[in-house]
């Protein structure tokens, strides 16, 4: 009997659990999912919760009945420390977790495993930016459904003020010098702008994009080249054109350091310390690992064996420090397996990337200001599935060779950037890149397969985004033939 433990029930963890239960006989093998909340949320639709177009109930559901049906044990708890070799009493690897449910809150237990999937995603590191506290004053976030729901309340207050003739400044973008997830902030600013204009309040609103990107459209993936209108142009033009069309202005190469109730303080790559007044701010925080600790059998701290300095888990990536010019797709992991403990995996945002994709930049004062590597939903789902497939193969054949692979240097990603909700008036840009990490050896001219890379704005994009919301929730709910829907 194999005992598989999955930490986290987000895109990567829930996908892995779903395929594990499909591929393994549950009478023979045990699957346990551990997550601090019993709900699954479709995070991309938080954007619509943040502008009042969806309610949190429409984007989340309770996982427990589904896991019951699937024969998966669910434990509402958060992982804290890893013991990959066990300890003096327990002979197999285990994790120490703390219950988060009402009945046992704060109580700790040890959960043993034969295979461990760490899919705990990012810690939303708001503390790394002074004053960036969602829900405080004029600061909002859309990173969770709870945050997004508050963002909508704050947004309504501002809409009311504008209706009463007051001017308001909306600043949306990145809230840390090395934050990632620009795509989500980009969607939110476009939706906020759309909702302001829909109400005819644009005269009262100033909408500003603030970003750590070197150029707009970088999105943490070094930008992309897309064929359009007889030219091959960069996503810089695409993003700028989108903003100019809507009268949104921008501040780029900005590392946000601090916020108070009405001012954002930032440093730019020129080393200048500047201020931006605001009435409503939605800034994506930095991402980090959860601060997990790891111990060997004797109790010695071996956290650096499992985790990179940013707290994310080490996997089969090449972490040798090298200059940007020497980066290749071979640096990127393929199986998400920990190199020291082969029965531990980290798909999704939980794995430590070997480096960023965008070129690291430093201000004249030595502050790193650039976009970290993004890991969007589609790659996270694929990594979760590949991890499950490899574990299933290992259990069934006894052969520990990882036969399923999914490198961000080979897989593509599709991202639908919503820019306004509505079946007739809505709009979104459909973006695809392949591969996610540019492969300059295979595609020396554009870094990616130009035939499959695109960026196309229009109403069809909204229909796609809307369809994906229902399709991915259908899949996550394990409804009939869920597995036919790709990640």
């Amino acid at each position, binding site marked *: 009997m194999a005992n598989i433990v999955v930490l986290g029930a987000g895109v990567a963890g829930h996908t892995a659990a779903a395929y594990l239960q499909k591929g393994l006989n549950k009478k023979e093998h045990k699957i346990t999912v551990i997550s601090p909340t019993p709900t699954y949320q479709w995070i991309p639709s938080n954007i619509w919760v943040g502008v009042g177009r969806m309610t949190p109930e429409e984007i989340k559901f309770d996982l427990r009945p589904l896991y019951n049906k699937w024969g998966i044990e669910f434990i509402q708890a958060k992982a804290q420390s890893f013991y990959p070799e066990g300890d003096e009493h327990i002979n197999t690897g285990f994790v120490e977790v703390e219950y988060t449910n009402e009945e046992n809150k704060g109580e700790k237990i040890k959960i043993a495993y034969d295979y461990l999937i760490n899919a705990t995603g990012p810690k939303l590191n708001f503390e790394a930016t002074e004053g960036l506290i969602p829900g405080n004053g004029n600061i909002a976030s859309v990173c969770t459904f709870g945050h997004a729901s508050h963002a909508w309340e704050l947004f309504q207050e501002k809409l009311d003020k504008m209706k009463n003739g007051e001017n308001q400044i909306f600043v949306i973008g990145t809230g840390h010098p090395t934050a990632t997830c620009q795509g989500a902030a980009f969607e939110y600013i476009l939706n906020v702008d759309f909702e302001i204009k829909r109400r005819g309040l644009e005269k009262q609103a100033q909408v500003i994009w603030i970003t750590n990107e070197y150029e707009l459209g970088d999105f943490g993936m070094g930008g992309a080249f897309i064929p359009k209108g007889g030219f091959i142009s960069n996503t810089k033009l695409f993003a700028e054109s989108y903003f100019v*069309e809507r009268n949104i202005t921008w501040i780029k190469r900005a590392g946000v350091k601090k916020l108070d109730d009405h001012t954002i303080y930032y440093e730019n790559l020129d080393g200048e310390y500047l201020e931006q007044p605001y009435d409503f701010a939605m800034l994506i925080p930095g991402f980090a690992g959860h601060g997990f600790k790891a111990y060997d059998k004797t109790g010695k701290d071996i956290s650096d064996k499992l985790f990179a300095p940013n707290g994310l888990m080490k996997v089969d990536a090449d972490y040798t420090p090298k200059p940007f010019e020497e980066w290749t797709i071979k640096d990127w992991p393929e199986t998400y397996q920990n190199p020291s403990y082969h029965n531990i995996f980290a798909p999704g945002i939980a794995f430590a990337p070997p480096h960023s994709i965008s070129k690291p930049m430093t201000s004249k004062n030595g502050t790193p200001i650039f976009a970290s590597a993004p890991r969007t939903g589609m790659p996270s789902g694929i990594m979760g599935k590949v991890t499950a497939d490899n574990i299933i193969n290992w259990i069934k054949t006894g052969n520990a060779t990882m036969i399923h*692979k999914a490198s961000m240097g080979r897989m593509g*990603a599709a991202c639908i950037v919503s820019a306004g909700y509505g079946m007739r008036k809505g709009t979104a840009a*459909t973006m695809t890149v*392949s591969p996610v990490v540019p492969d300059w050896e295979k595609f020396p001219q554009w870094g990616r397969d130009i035939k499959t890379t695109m960026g196309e704005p229009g*109403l069809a994009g909204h229909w796609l985004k809307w369809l994906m919301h229902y399709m991915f929730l259908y899949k996550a709910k394990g409804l009939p033939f869920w597995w036919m829907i*790709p990640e």
Partner: protein
Amino acid sequence: MENRLIITKYSEQYYPPTPNNFTLFLRRSIFFQLIRFFILNYKIMKIVIKGHS
């Protein structure tokens, strides 16, 4: 629109391309977008299938 150009002259916002009326019409046209919807689906599926090994 003229207003924007005067205000933004020589700033970053002055230079990027802006869609003309025909492009905006195509982006909103139900008929054209319906065709694009199927093409976009096909293009995404090609990438999705390639990503799994």
